[in-house]
């Protein structure tokens, strides 16, 4: 092969009437692209190891935003392809429904309070390794990062444990994600295929809904685009909310744009319509990277993980954005795909999983032990179809350690510091979290069990004493 020649891939897109042919090529000098003989070596062993790992992270993506998962309001061919090529979890929760804290849990396998990322813009505690540091120290994967980081800087060329290939643009998904996915495309097209990699592609979208809210706060009588009136998604069944919620959540709602702008239902529905367009934008950018993996011959040997830092209110409980324990902000997509090793098109609806499970899972696939004191667990046995007992519970927390959520297979318990109003939902009979059962004597004993679970969990954590509200939880009860 001539070292100055380029690798070319040709593919076709078909719209309704046109036939579009695209070919892509890398422009840098290429090393020998022949797959080395050990690429597939792992497949003969009892613990196969993917040649490469690609972790997609999106920002503020509601779990029900994938057409193949049942969302009727979007067209998401790339996410559909990803979902149907692997295993997805429907009971998947963010470890903290806020950007930096959630990301600290994903990259450390520890609670955000342990990682001391209890609010946005803090770094992971220095004695806890992040996934990039751990993999680069313990394996032969080269570790790369593209896009939003937020631990502490949102966009930076300096991330411990990673070589940053693209920094993104602060705060704006539209331009940021396009540049980021183009960088990933260039990276994949130019890279020698003999070298294993761990690449994080961290998208900003659909977070642009935050800018949308600020640019559409004022309610207007007339829809800005009357031609979409018939397309506006309906409001969710749990649009109404309990007037006796804890103050923490009521204050958050009052501070949001819909309350300030006194939105009517039409405005809420327009917000939902706009959010779904951001999802479609994101989908196309994810598709660019998936297509490049395919074009360059990586697809069969790459473990792909897709997740989100936290969800989006999306009008459930008349909430927007994040930082609440309701499922709309707490639940996140979690998809694993690796052709031949992870079953296709399987949806796990029973296992409780958390963002904290990602680090131990990826370490397991990389053939190494995770760092000590993981709070999550490897999901590999579940992904390989082994019979695994369901986890009894998972815990999530909010900013400054001021709130905790315990989710068990049947119930959700929510408590805030210095607030006697607790929330307790029967998630089997009331998945929309509309009836608070905390004051019901019928549930007193099971509620007490949940309080104890939280206390016991907290007592085992390694939260530095100078963290805000460090000892508030294990003492509670």
């Amino acid at each position, binding site marked *: 092969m001539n070292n100055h020649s380029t690798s070319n891939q040709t593919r076709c897109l078909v719209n309704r009437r046109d036939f579009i042919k695209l070919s892509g090529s890398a422009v840098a000098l290429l090393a020998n692209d022949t797959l080395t003989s050990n690429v597939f070596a792992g497949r003969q062993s009892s613990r196969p190891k993917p040649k490469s790992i690609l972790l997609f992270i999106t920002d503020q993506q509601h779990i029900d935003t994938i057409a193949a998962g049942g969302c009727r309001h979007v067209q998401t061919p790339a996410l559909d392809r990803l979902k149907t090529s692997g295993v997805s979890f429907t009971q998947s929760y963010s470890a903290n429904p806020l950007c930096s804290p959630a990301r600290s849990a994903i990259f450390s396998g520890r609670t955000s309070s342990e990682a001391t990322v209890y609010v946005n813009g803090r770094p992971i505690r220095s004695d806890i390794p992040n996934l990039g540091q751990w993999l680069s120290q313990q394996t032969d994967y080269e570790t790369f990062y593209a896009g939003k980081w937020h631990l502490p800087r949102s*966009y930076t060329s300096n991330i411990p444990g990673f070589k940053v290939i693209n920094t993104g643009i602060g705060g704006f998904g539209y331009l940021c994600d396009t540049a980021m996915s183009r960088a990933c495309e260039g990276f994949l097209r130019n890279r020698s295929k003999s070298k294993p990699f761990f690449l994080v592609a961290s998208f900003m979208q659909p977070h*642009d809904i935050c800018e949308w809210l*600020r640019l559409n706060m004022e309610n207007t009588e007339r829809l800005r685009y009357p031609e979409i009136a018939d397309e506006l998604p309906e409001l969710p069944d749990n649009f109404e909310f309990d007037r006796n919620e804890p103050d923490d959540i009521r204050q958050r709602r009052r501070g949001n744009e819909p309350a300030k702008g006194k939105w009517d239902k039409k405005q809420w529905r327009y917000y939902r319509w706009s959010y779904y*367009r951001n999802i*479609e934008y994101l989908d196309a950018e994810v598709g660019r990277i998936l297509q490049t993996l395919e074009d360059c011959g990586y697809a069969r040997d790459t473990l792909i993980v897709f997740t989100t830092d936290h969800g989006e209110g999306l009008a459930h409980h008349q909430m927007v954005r994040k930082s609440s324990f309701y499922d709309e902000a707490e639940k996140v997509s979690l998809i694993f795909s690796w052709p031949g090793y992870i079953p296709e098109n399987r949806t796990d609806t029973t296992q409780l999983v958390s963002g904290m499970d990602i680090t131990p899972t990826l370490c397991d696939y990389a053939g190494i032990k995770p760092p000590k004191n993981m709070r999550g667990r490897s999901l590999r046995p579940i992904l390989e179809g082994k019979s695994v007992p369901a986890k009894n519970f998972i815990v999530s927390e909010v900013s400054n350690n001021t709130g905790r959520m315990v989710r068990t297979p049947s119930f959700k318990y929510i408590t805030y510091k210095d607030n006697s109003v607790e929330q307790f939902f029967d998630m089997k009979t009331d998945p929309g979290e509309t009836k608070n059962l905390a004051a019901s004597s019928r549930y007193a004993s099971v509620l007490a069990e949940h309080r104890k679970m939280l206390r016991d969990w907290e007592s085992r954590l390694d939260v530095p004493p100078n963290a805000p509200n460090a000892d508030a939880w294990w003492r509670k009860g």
Partner: protein
Amino acid sequence: MAKRKSKRTIVGSPLTPTLLNELGALNEFPPSSEDFNLDGNWVNTYRIWTCHGYRESGNQNVGFIRLKRIGESGKAFVLNVHQEVVQTDGITNIIDATIKCRNNQLASPIEWKLSSRFIGADGKNIPGLSSNKNGTVTNEMGRMTGDWCLFEAVQRLKIGKETVLGFDMLEGQSLLKKDQRLSYRGLSKTKIGGEVISLYCFVQLGNGILPYEYWLDENHRLLMVTSMNKAYILDDKAEKVIK
């Protein structure tokens, strides 16, 4: 001592020419050249400005796009695109595209070459991230365009309610966004640079995009494009502003 957040005012309403003027994103437009011919050779440069949703902070110029139309007659013309978008820590993504377009209502792309590269704060190419793409569309009956092609095409559209177009779009000549529609929205008058100007607006709606609004002057020159929190503003000095 904890930092005190400065008071910020939420913008509250979608970007319009008037609002862009209020927010300081534009003061004036370059004068229209007397020999500006929509169907001829021209160069338009747009500054790319983004809004964080607050009046006082977070709004910035992040890049520019220069479109050069070549070809005065015939069935096709060439559109050269040069776009630079500045990222954090001085990294810049540079896109160059040469698109041969059909001389139809949508400036439908026939064939194109596109390159993407990144330079660092030192201005040097970042190795290993560049890519090239070639593409062709082979069905003459198609209703296909590209987002950059629309910057050219919209200037040639007939202004009036009867203008309603349906099409599929290649965003950045690479990502297919189906089921787009473009229609004439209306005329508004806006005071910019001490002068009241008439602006004709077309709206694009479709899958995978937030609505785009194209704002044209009386000579059909595209002065700006707004979509959610970003604006492309005609500005001869855009490149200097960014660099």
